């Protein structure tokens, strides 16, 4: 077990699948597929296994923040669910990359809950949840997935490259690794401009095995940059099991070699992620440099696209590289019903209010898809623009 000499060391192994399989209260979309056996009201004792980075209570978190977490996780969840349904239905002629982050909302929302609006994030291919959590406009997100002119990237990017510089979202990216350099650079920029902004890089477990990861983190340590690296370790890289690509048990250990504070946290617990990130943000804002956070989590769908997914069914099953029972074990830890149980148990919300919030979110999501459906298609020759700021490139495909 690696030591963490800074900040008290909260690295902890992932609890085995067995403990995670108890029947827990679940929202509608979970009941569809995850084998839920009933609604057991969680007590304070079961939801708060102390602040060890693994499972957290909600003490000290303002009501507004808790409601925002709940609503934001739902927004991301339902946006992807409804996009998935649209892909499967086939009527909209959707095409292109589509990396679903369902199951991973807690790390996105937990991190963003600790950030300010003017902070930066640099995301990866699986970034929808990051975007929604950082305030991304789901109308423009839907538009981009439809490759329409109302899309965030005017149809140039599609799912994998959605960007909103105005909200500090430096973009999703189709290449593994550069987000660490970009976030370190954004942190550097904050120093140059004399602000106390923080920059967060999100990467998968696969993104740590590459020089840009090492470079971004190491230079953040050297220059004490306000940067946080969040590794969302979902156990797979496409169909590669994480364990075959790295000899470490906890990827946060990588911080030890660079003398960077590092923690492994339960990526299925939005409050645990929030707590860990708050510490990292405080460190960054007071000029103490970067933090490396590993959030252990899981994606309920396939790497990209819809293999194993069915209309109306929550989660993808029958995939060749993982077992359905592994997926179900993780789904049983789902962060959204977990937070909902805590909110209801702690009388932050009634059950009815919780359902109303979810229904409203879902309606809003469906509306964004409709907006996209009705948006104008892009012009053929638009792509000759935006190569450079103010010139067009020639249409060289026409030889004569």
């Amino acid at each position, binding site marked *: 077990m690696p030591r963490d000499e800074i900040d008290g060391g909260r690295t902890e192994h992932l609890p085995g699948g067995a403990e995670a399989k108890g029947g827990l209260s679940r929202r509608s979309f979970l009941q569809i597929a995850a084998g839920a056996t009933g609604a057991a009201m969680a007590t304070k004792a079961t939801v708060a296994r102390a602040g060890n980075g693994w499972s957290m209570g909600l003490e000290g978190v303002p009501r507004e923040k808790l409601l925002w977490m709940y609503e934001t996780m739902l927004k991301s969840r339902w946006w992807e669910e409804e996009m998935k349904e649209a892909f499967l239905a086939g009527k909209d002629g959707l*095409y*292109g*990359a589509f990396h679903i982050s369902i199951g991973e909302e807690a790390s996105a929302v937990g991190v963003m809950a600790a950030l300010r609006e003017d902070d930066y994030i640099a995301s990866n291919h699986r970034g929808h949840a990051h975007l929604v959590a950082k305030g991304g406009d789901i109308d423009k997100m839907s538009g981009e997935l439809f*490759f329409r002119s109302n899309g965030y*990237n005017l*149809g*140039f*990017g*599609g799912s*994998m*490259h959605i960007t909103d510089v105005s909200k500090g979202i430096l973009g999703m*990216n*189709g*290449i*593994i*690794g550069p987000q660490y350099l970009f976030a370190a650079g954004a942190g550097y920029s904050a120093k140059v401009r004399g602000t106390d902004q923080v920059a967060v890089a999100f990467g998968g477990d*696969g*993104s740590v*095995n*590459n*020089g840009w990861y090492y470079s971004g983190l190491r230079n953040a340590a050297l220059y004490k940059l306000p940067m946080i690296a969040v590794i969302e370790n979902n156990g797979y*890289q*496409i*169909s*590669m*099991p994480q364990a*075959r*690509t*790295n000899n470490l048990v906890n990827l946060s250990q990588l911080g030890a070699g660079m003398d960077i504070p590092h923690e492994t946290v339960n990526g299925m617990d939005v409050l645990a992620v929030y707590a860990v990130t708050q510490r990292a943000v405080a460190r960054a804002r007071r000029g103490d440099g970067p933090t490396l956070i590993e959030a252990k989590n899981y994606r309920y769908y396939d790497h990209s696209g819809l293999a194993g997914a069915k209309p109306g069914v929550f989660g993808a099953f029958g995939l060749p590289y993982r077992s359905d029972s592994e997926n179900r074990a993780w789904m049983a830890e789902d962060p959204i019903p977990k937070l909902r149980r805590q909110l209801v148990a702690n009388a932050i919300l009634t059950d009815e209010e919780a359902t109303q919030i979810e229904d409203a979110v879902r309606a809003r999501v469906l509306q964004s898809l409709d907006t996209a459906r009705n948006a104008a*298609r*892009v*012009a*053929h*020759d*638009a*792509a*000759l623009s935006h*190569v450079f700021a103010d010139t067009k*490139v*020639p*249409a*060289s*495909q*026409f*030889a*004569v």
Partner: protein
Amino acid sequence: MAPKPGNYAVLEAIQHEMRRDPHLTMLYEYQRPTAVSPTGTVIDLHAEFGEPRIPDWGPIDEEWFVGGGAGIAMTGVRTIARVPSMCTLRCFELVFNQVGKLRHMTGGQVNMPLVIWQDASGRRPGSAGQHADAGQEALYAAIPGIKVVVPANPHDAKGLMIAALRDPDPVIFFHYSGINSVSVDVPDEGYVIPIGEAAIRQEGTDITLVGYGPAAIEINKSLPDLAAAGISAEVIDPRSIKPLPIEAINASVRKTGKLLVVDHGHETLGTASEIIARVAMAVPGAKLARSTFPDAPPPGAAEMITWMTPDAPKIVDAVRKMVA
């Protein structure tokens, strides 16, 4: 003899050579080296050859495949490094400053029997940005000490891969995904297509059409329309970009007097530039043109990228104008 998908044909080539050479080693990322032929034959290189010659997966670390692969190759073990399609240039510095230079820099001491099996997306809607690229073979061809081949169908892919695996020098094998579904017969046995040898796909007298990889596929699709229009096109697929079989092209242009190079790479400094420059100097008076993807990254929307890609209709159109 039967049509086989491109990926199967290449694995067949590698299997053939791994059986001949007990050390031949392959490193790869997530593209497991297994495929099934249309007749049900399964190739699974990991099952057949096992660790360490074919490890069970690899990290997302392309520089390891190429840089570590170079270290393996330098010690006398022929090596294949497979690099995924979205990062055709992730290892460019290593290829430029190490792989391509070490033989020369050491006065001939270092052998570098390294094949980089470079997957390439090719132009396609929906992928956008980094996942619909083409043309980077030209950048590698600009590097001293590197050979570059680009098959346009599974048959050539197999023969060129075997040639690459027997070559004493580093070879980049650019594998566009679009060639996988081209239906051609692929012999079961091993055979070599010599690196640097063009294929004359069709003889003709009115114009010379040159293109490789995905452009060759589009040229091929344009042929019925050209024939219908009474145009006799000579069609050349160079297959190797370095060495470039320029003599075959020059000879054809001397005959036809007209050259259209079709390239899914960019306009500026793509392979088409080199071909046109060489023909211009060797065959004075020829009429020269190129149809390329514009100097822009690939956009996601189908409307845009389809319009930008040199395809059969655009080729027919250009040829009609050139011979008019």
